[in-house]
């Protein structure tokens, strides 16, 4: 496995942010359309107290994966870890921005584990997801 050299990654380095406008059609594709679903049935979502259907939290975890693959490549696909907390609902029509910052580099055998703090904000600047992801780099 060819890993990114840890020397090319700096602690406190900000990762390029990723914008994600989320359409109902994308939510439908992710979750599969069915009645009585807060993701794909607008009437059911309203009944449960939401102004619009919710994007599945897991969609946001895919954005974390995208950011980590861009940073670490193979070392995230094989050896990556992710720990996510979904803190606010994401609605159809929202635009999320994914942010990440390198927090630490830890020796792991002959390799280095690069730990990234990440968070997602919606178009109003409200955090919808926070967490930590990591993957392997060469020492």
């Amino acid at each position, binding site marked *: 496995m060819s890993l990114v050299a840890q020397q090319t990654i700096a602690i406190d380095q900000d990762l390029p942010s990723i914008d994600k406008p989320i359409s109902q059609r994308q939510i439908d594709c992710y979750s599969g359309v069915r009645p009585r679903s807060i993701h794909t049935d607008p009437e059911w979502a309203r009944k449960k107290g939401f102004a619009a259907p919710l994007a599945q939290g897991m*969609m946001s975890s*895919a954005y974390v994966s995208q950011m980590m*693959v861009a940073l670490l490549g193979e070392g995230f696909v094989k*050896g*990556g870890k*992710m720990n996510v907390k979904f803190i606010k609902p994401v609605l159809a029509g929202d635009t999320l921005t994914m942010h990440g910052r390198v927090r630490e580099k830890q020796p792991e055998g002959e390799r280095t584990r690069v730990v990234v703090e990440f968070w997602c904000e919606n178009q109003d600047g409200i955090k919808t997801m926070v967490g930590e992801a990591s993957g392997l780099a060469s020492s």
Partner: protein
Amino acid sequence: MIEFRRISYDAVQVGEQFTSNDLVVKPEDLDTFAYAVDDHHPWYFEDSPFGGPIVHPTLLANQALMMRHNKFVVDAGLHAAMQFEFIEPIRVGMRVRTRGKVVDKYEKRGRHYMVTEFVTTEEDTGQILLRGQFTQMFFPD
């Protein structure tokens, strides 16, 4: 034959086990996922350093979440937390299955939660592809 029950804090027991359906990862699954999350990295469509294309590391996350639907009627739940460990790359053509177990349920600030551990394997080889844990909040009636 399975007798489906509506999922609730009382209905779910710690130690309860879940199994997903088999899924053959298909090219259309990859296309649909890429569109849904707007991630069209070339490793998923052309070639990757692992030899041939792979799929998005979180593509099978919904197989883990949907395990509960094989035992319960799940009208709604809010996903509170998720942990992943990516062990091996996933590829189109693999036949995969996820198995899980409820490891905790608890009440916090008047809300009820369940915690489920899961492992996803390639069925033909037994190779573990990913594992993790998810926490769901039960929706109040």
